[in-house]
């Protein structure tokens, strides 16, 4: 009986297994099923949780099932592309490759998704019909924006817009404008974002669902500008259309936006109802782990801001499992930053481990400098709250370096003001 041996620590197991691509699902399953987080030992970090080698047989089966399902979908897309080529329909081949990329993206394998999209783009560039290229550029722009490569995302969307304009493809142009609006939002350029969404609305006019998506963008702009009534009006407009259309994902995004708006209005109970409804709607469809994670992150943020720290921690733990199982590295890093904030708010200095973990993840295979910068910024604030001014300064300066390299002036200005609030080196030491 395997019970005769002491269980293995997760950190030992992960060190023992080579960091090869084929084992990634097994690593995720091991972390997700490890034991040790309990009422008895609630503070045990993931690495110090336990697994039993005897249970691996079952885990291997589950991991292999996941890999097989994933590979089957990729092979099906590849075969579909070959069949399309055989009948001389290269546009269909591009779309099959895009589907494969979508599949990789959903599995949290963004680097592999990019390879499929890049390949699709090379084929699409040869075609007389430019719409497959426009679709490809949307995928690439979205991926770049999500990774914080905003300049590149912007260039990709601009090309997509130019092509769509030339092709007389208003839907493609509207989507490009939506992407450009999203990039401007991330950069904190509210006016620019509003202009792009408004321009997109012009292209999208006959397509009500597309107009509603752009209204969602306008609501985001209004929220970051503090114009909460305008945001509510835009969400109302979008909601009327999306409820009628009944398409699940945009509706879930709408509810998520409502949740954030209600949070900004200080109506926490209403916000929670919106978030819960969003999760309930997601449940009835093919699961979209990334979207679910976004909503869960917002729920965690809500509880954190309301000072309901135990509830925030429970939510984070649930979301952590989801992120690990679905290999959502960037969201996991965000989650750990928030966990550090929760622990900091509770006066638990050990919370620093979560910032360290977030930084490690943001430098990993799916590196995201912006995320790394955000983690260092919060880490600096965490250390400052505990009176470690030297460490706080070091982390804030590192965050500033990262945002400076990204050309993000507003973030640099924010960090400068935080740094100026710290005692000078000689005072601190």
């Amino acid at each position, binding site marked *: *009986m*395997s019970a005769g041996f002491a269980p293995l620590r997760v950190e030992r197991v992960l060190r023992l297994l080579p960091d090869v691509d084929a084992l990634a699902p097994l690593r995720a399953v091991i972390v997700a099923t490890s034991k040790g987080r309990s009422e008895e030992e609630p503070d045990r970090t993931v690495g110090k949780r336990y697994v039993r080698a005897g249970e691996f047989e079952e885990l291997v089966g589950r991991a292999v099932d996941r890999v097989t399902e994933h590979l089957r979908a990729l092979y099906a897309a590849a075969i579909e592309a070959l069949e399309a080529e055989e009948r001389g329909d290269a546009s269909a081949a591009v779309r099959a490759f895009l589907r494969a990329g979508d599949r990789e993206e959903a599995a949290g394998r963004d680097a592999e998704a990019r390879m499929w999209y890049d390949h699709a783009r090379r084929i699409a560039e040869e075609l007389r019909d430019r719409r497959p290229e426009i679709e490809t550029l949307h995928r690439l722009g979205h991926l770049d924006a999500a990774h914080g490569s905003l300049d590149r995302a912007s260039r990709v969307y601009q090309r997509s817009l130019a092509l769509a304009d030339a092709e007389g493809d208003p839907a493609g142009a509207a989507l490009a404008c939506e992407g450009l609006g999203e990039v401007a939002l991330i950069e904190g350029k509210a006016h620019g974002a509003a202009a792009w969404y408004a321009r997109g609305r012009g292209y999208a006019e006959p397509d009500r669902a597309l107009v509603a998506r752009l209204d969602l963008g306008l609501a985001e702009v209004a929220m970051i500008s503090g114009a909460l009534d305008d945001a509510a009006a835009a969400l109302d407009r979008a909601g009327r259309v999306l409820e009628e259309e009944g398409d699940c994902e945009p509706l879930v995004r709408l509810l998520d936006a409502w949740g954030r708006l209600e949070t900004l209005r200080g109506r926490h109970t209403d916000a929670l109802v919106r978030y819960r409804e969003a999760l309930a709607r997601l449940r009835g469809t093919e699961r979209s782990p990334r979207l679910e994670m976004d909503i869960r992150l917002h729920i965690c943020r809500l509880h954190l801001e309301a000072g309901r720290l135990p509830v925030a921690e429970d939510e984070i733990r*649930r979301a952590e499992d989801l992120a690990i199982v679905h290999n959502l590295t960037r969201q996991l890093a965000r989650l750990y930053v928030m966990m550090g904030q929760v622990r900091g708010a509770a006066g638990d200095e050990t919370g620093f481990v979560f910032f360290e973990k977030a930084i490690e993840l943001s430098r990993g295979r799916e590196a995201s400098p912006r995320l790394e910068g955000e983690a260092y910024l919060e880490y600096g604030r965490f250390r400052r709250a505990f009176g470690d001014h030297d460490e706080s300064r070091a982390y804030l300066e590192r965050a500033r370096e990262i945002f400076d390299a990204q050309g993000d002036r507003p973030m640099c200005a924010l960090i400068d003001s935080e740094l100026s609030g710290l005692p000078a080196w000689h005072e601190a030491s």
Partner: protein
Amino acid sequence: MGAHVNGVDFGTPHQAKPLRFLGVGDDAALFTDLARFAEGESAVIERVADAAAAVRALSQTGWSCLLVVLDQEPDEQLAWWVEILSRSPRRPRLVALLPSPSIGFLLRAAEHGIFDVLATPVGRDRFAELLRRLRTAEDEVAVPLPEVKPFPVGTSGMVSESPAMLPVFRTIAQVAPSTATVLVMGESGTGKELVARAIHLNGPRASGPFVAVNCAAIPDNLLESELFGHEKGAFTGAVGRKIGRFERANGGTLFLDEIGDMSLPLQSKILRAVQEREIERVGGGDPIAVDGRVIAATNRDLKAMIAEGRFREDLYYRLAVVTIRLPRLADRGDDLLALTSAFLREFGQRYAKPLTSLSDRALGLLRTHDWVGNVRELRNVIERAVLVADGPMLRSEHLPEEWRTGAAPAMAVENDHLWTLREMEARHIARVLDHAHGQIGDAAHILGVHRNTLARKIKEYGL
């Protein structure tokens, strides 16, 4: 008020407090039947078609019970509903409806704290039994909170009226004035850090810092630099110089919690720091003198670890100059009520909820719970309960869902109900499987049957 479906009244008024049901599912005929059964029973049944609508409806309070029709993947659906309800401000009880639930499903439902599982179609008698159980469960009587005077320890306090804690208080009083190294032993959550803090605050270094490190909560690769500090650039990510906890505890006390979780190489470094009273920062060449009292704690059997070669014997004897052993919460008698009262007042104040009593059922659940996490678990449970409480009395519904198996599915809970042989067998197999961590081979060995026989029974009972 009578029973009604979608606003249609079916029944006549009744003296008891009306039970308000929310039905979820698109089987209108099923809920019409249930509403008919509820006629004259002072119950209201409203139905919504899907989970999204149910979530909206749940934002209103006053629901006694949620009747959820489970169709495909009932286990997954059940777990989802449990999660959703855990976020509801006043949690109604959850009843699952599905055709022919397996014994395994009933057992898992009980683990989740589901109030009942009804096999569809539901008969009148079965529904009447549910109503009766719900009414009994809703009836809770207030138990006033006792006055408690904690012994102050810094900003918090130690609460105890138990003789089991007397040796602990006595040793704290004896050892605090010295600078001797102390090893505090006890299960997780028994209050080891509080004891360390009490020693510090009553000792000669009380004006110095009290620096606590939970060695189990810090991954090994970060623990060394956290304890000893590092120089800028010592490794990737060392963006600035860091002062370690040993240095920060100069003139005060360093509390090393869960020391049994430390790796052997790090144990050697700790030994050197305790013995030589000097440390080296990671990436730094010069030794730095440190002067702090060390108090260590563990929930592990360090002597057994020494015998297995997993803990250094010389470090053990350095740390265990004086030892204090903390009792489990279960061995502290009525401290449970005193601690509950103290935590209710503390969190009631923090979250602006003036709780003045605890219900008899809630107290019963607290008393019968197996407190593996000891006082910390109790504290966490009370904090979460206070967050969801909405009146002056803490009720059983505010406690974790999975405890409310008073509660267990009607499969076998009635006092006069005798289990069938099949039910007994299924329960026993589930218990053994749990003990064997799901390993069929091991479980078959314990049960003395062939693994194929066990596999067949697991399938048969849906375990």
